[in-house]
């Protein structure tokens, strides 16, 4: 019996069974020297399954657990994917970041489940965003997005994503705090949001990291759509046309004056530049074809030799080893995770807009990665949430998943002025 009164026997069993079946598939089809090679992976995966189920059962207090199970399913599948690239082994680093992501998911949930509380802390969010931006400006090497601390490299711009999504989220109350500037009623908060977005865009431009720009643009676009359409109820045609025209002009200008390397990337004919700019994409597409629907078998692929095979073109690597169908289904699990809040609907406007932002960020990342590596859109170096390797992106994705969960098991308590701090401490302690 879980805290909400349901038993999750079916969920636990099916998650465990799916993982065992996949481990069996590795045993039966994989490339390894001795069957003992699979043992560490099997122990790690099944161990995490059981441990997390127990943690969920006894330690987590929430109304919905499905998202946790979906996340567990996905994360262990991802561990198995990553462990098999180019031969069965155990991706210990990825495994650790996965566990961290699970923990961060809970932190994200606890921080955002009470929207009144998080809204009262919005000023902290702005400060956090400012700190992150400053850290990028000051701590990273010249014009890069990475901070290197010993063996660990951190990408602060990743952490900006959930913060920005939270800033984008809004409640009805906030939307009605409006002032008339010239002819428009604009809320103060909207102005700050736009300012923050412009700063982020400028920063990304300066850092030459245009890959994650669409992610922020999507989150901002959704926030804008929510705010614009709110007072009008129906999408006013004039507004929509006007906004899309401005957006189109901005995009066109951006493309026109984009730095040379960006423009090169937009117009790569990959099959004519198989040894040059199109190398990764060509290899990725060939790998998808080579794998066919059912794959060559875990560890039997050859794409792992290509640079960024476990991050930017991870979809193709999975396609080659596990087959197109399994790769598509793992994407389906991710989509299912985002569909869950649509089944168990949020009860507050703030959570709705927050979920919208999370979904926009996650989907845009997935889209950029998958469609980019398959040459449907220009290739950018972004990651698939939870499936690609990478600490910063894992933690960010975990936090976003926690926000999705918060929308489903919200808390409606207005913190009493004096007890505010105590409650917050309690919330952190529960994590």
């Amino acid at each position, binding site marked *: 019996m879980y805290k909400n009164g349901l038993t999750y026997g079916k969920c636990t069993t099916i998650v465990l069974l799916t993982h065992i079946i996949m481990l069996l598939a590795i045993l039966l089809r994989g490339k390894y020297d001795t069957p003992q090679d699979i043992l560490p992976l099997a122990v790690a995966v099944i161990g995490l399954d059981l441990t997390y189920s127990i943690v969920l059962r006894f330690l987590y207090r929430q109304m919905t657990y499905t998202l946790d199970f979906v996340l567990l399913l996905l994360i262990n599948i991802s561990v198995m994917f990553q462990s098999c690239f180019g031969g069965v082994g155990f991706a210990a680093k990825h495994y650790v970041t996965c566990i961290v992501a699970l923990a961060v998911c809970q932190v994200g949930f606890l921080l955002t489940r009470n929207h009144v509380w998080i809204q009262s802390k919005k000023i902290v969010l702005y400060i956090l965003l400012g700190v992150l931006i400053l850290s990028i400006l000051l701590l990273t090497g010249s014009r890069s997005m990475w901070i290197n601390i010993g063996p660990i490299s951190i990408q602060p711009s990743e952490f900006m994503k959930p913060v920005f999504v939270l800033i984008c989220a809004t409640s*009805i109350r906030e939307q009605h705090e409006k002032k008339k500037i010239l002819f428009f009623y604009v809320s103060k908060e909207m102005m700050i949001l736009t300012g923050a977005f412009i700063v982020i865009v400028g920063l990304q431009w300066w850092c030459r990291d245009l890959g994650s720009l669409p992610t922020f643009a*999507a989150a901002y676009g*959704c926030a804008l*759509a*929510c705010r614009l*359409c*709110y007072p009008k109820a129906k999408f006013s045609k004039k507004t929509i046309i006007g906004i899309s025209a401005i957006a189109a002009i901005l995009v066109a200008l951006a493309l026109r004056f984009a730095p040379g390397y960006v423009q090169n990337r937009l117009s790569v004919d990959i*099959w004519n530049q*198989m040894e040059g700019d199109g190398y990764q994409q*060509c290899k990725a*597409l*060939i790998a*998808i*074809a*080579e*794998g*066919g*629907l*059912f*794959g*060559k078998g875990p560890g039997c692929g050859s794409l792992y030799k290509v640079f960024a095979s476990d991050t930017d073109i991870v979809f193709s690597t999975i396609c080659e080893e596990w087959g*197109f169908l399994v790769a*598509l289904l793992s*994407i389906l699990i991710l*989509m299912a995770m*985002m*569909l869950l*809040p*649509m089944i168990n*609907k*949020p*009860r*507050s*406007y703030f959570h*709705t*807009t927050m*979920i*919208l932002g999370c*979904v*926009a960020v996650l*989907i845009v990342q*997935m*889209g950029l990665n*998958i*469609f980019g590596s*398959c040459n*449907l859109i220009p290739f950018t170096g972004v990651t698939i949430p939870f499936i690609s390797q990478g600490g910063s992106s894992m933690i960010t994705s975990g936090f976003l998943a926690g926000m999705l969960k918060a929308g489903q098991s919200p808390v409606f308590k207005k913190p009493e002025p004096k007890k505010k701090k105590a409650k917050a401490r309690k919330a952190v302690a529960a994590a």
Partner: protein
Amino acid sequence: MKSIQSIRRGERLTILILIVFFLGMGVLVWKVVKESSFYMSHSDDVTLGMVYDRNNQILFDPNASTETYDENYFLDVGNVIGDDSGQMTNTLVSENIEKLQNYSLIFGATPHGKTAIYSTLDHKANQTVYNAFGSKNGTAIAYNYQTGEILVCVSKPSVNILDNYSNISELPDGSLICKAFYETTPGSTQKIATTAAALETFGYDGLMSKTYTCNGIYTTKYNQQIKCHDLNGHGTQNIVQGFENSCNPFFAQLVQDMPLDNIIQTYTRMGIAVNDTKMQKIQFDGLSSFSASTKLTDTSDFDTMWSCMGQSEALASPLQMMLWESAIANASGKVTEPYLIDHTTNVTGSTKYEAKTTYGENNIFSAEVASQIKQIMRQNGQERYSSIGYPVGVKSGTAQVQNGASENSLLVGFNDDPNLPIAFCVVIEDRVSGEISTSDIVSTMLNALNQN
């Protein structure tokens, strides 16, 4: 439960994003399904299947070597069927390599799959024709004008793919292309097209009643001389005699009497690119071929007259000349579209693609004109080419190439027999009298095809 409206709006946007992504995934799946064979053509994993001829003789084997095949086994089809080495383009294998892959999206790469292309060629006849050329170079192409199956396609000099291009620098010019698909000077065979234009302009009776006199040399009104190959002159002739004699002064005067627009109209419908208009290449089974082109400016002009007689600016591919014969032989005015692939099989051995007989969309000339030309050509065949031994309708041609340094001998025509419906075009390069003639090769070819 009806959810609150302000929340529902956010949900709708969320679902919209998910749907857009889902559609994107749909596009991706469609793209992969459609293009996976293309991606595989860049892979090292895949093996190729065989190409067979119409009697299941092997025309291409990816693992061919001199140990398993006779030294000259592939010589006659070297530059038509080609191979996967990438040295040649516009060959059956190089243009259809995706269809030959032992690969399917479902099963992945299968090393011993049953993928194959079954060609319409008759390897035995092809070899016979190739050998018939002896020491001469040239090209011969023949197809069934009722169905469109290409039965013989020879281009000499050819390349022996079993040599693995070790002697590529020593190969003579033109070894790596199938000349039947490239332009050549058509010579007097162009007079078929000119006759068609005349028939359309004057009508059958009108043309039959026209006679012109040949004194060996005809002087145009711009005072240019058109010489006949018989400088003694042919005397006064009608179209049938002029056609048989292939009399240049006769056709020069005929062209002069015709409005330029009529000739251009007929030529254009036949697929000849007149005066730098864009040429429609002939495309079939991934292969592409030159069709025909010419320049016409003034029907009294020396160059225009010669262009109408297959010299000067006139160019045509042997394939195109052969295709015109199908419209005449069928007496329909419609070209039977050619094909070289009869059917293909996939990895599991089941038939994936099967060729169908198709005809050109538009008549190149009316069925009436077609049967009238057929009659003229048949008469020519009966009277001058009975040595072939088949009821053929033909037109010969002698094309001066390299500024008159050498002469190519051409013969285009058809066998007017429903049991052996063959249209053909034979070109012997740099032929001097006394050597093997085009009619000998046609005779050999029809005999070889008749046996099978």
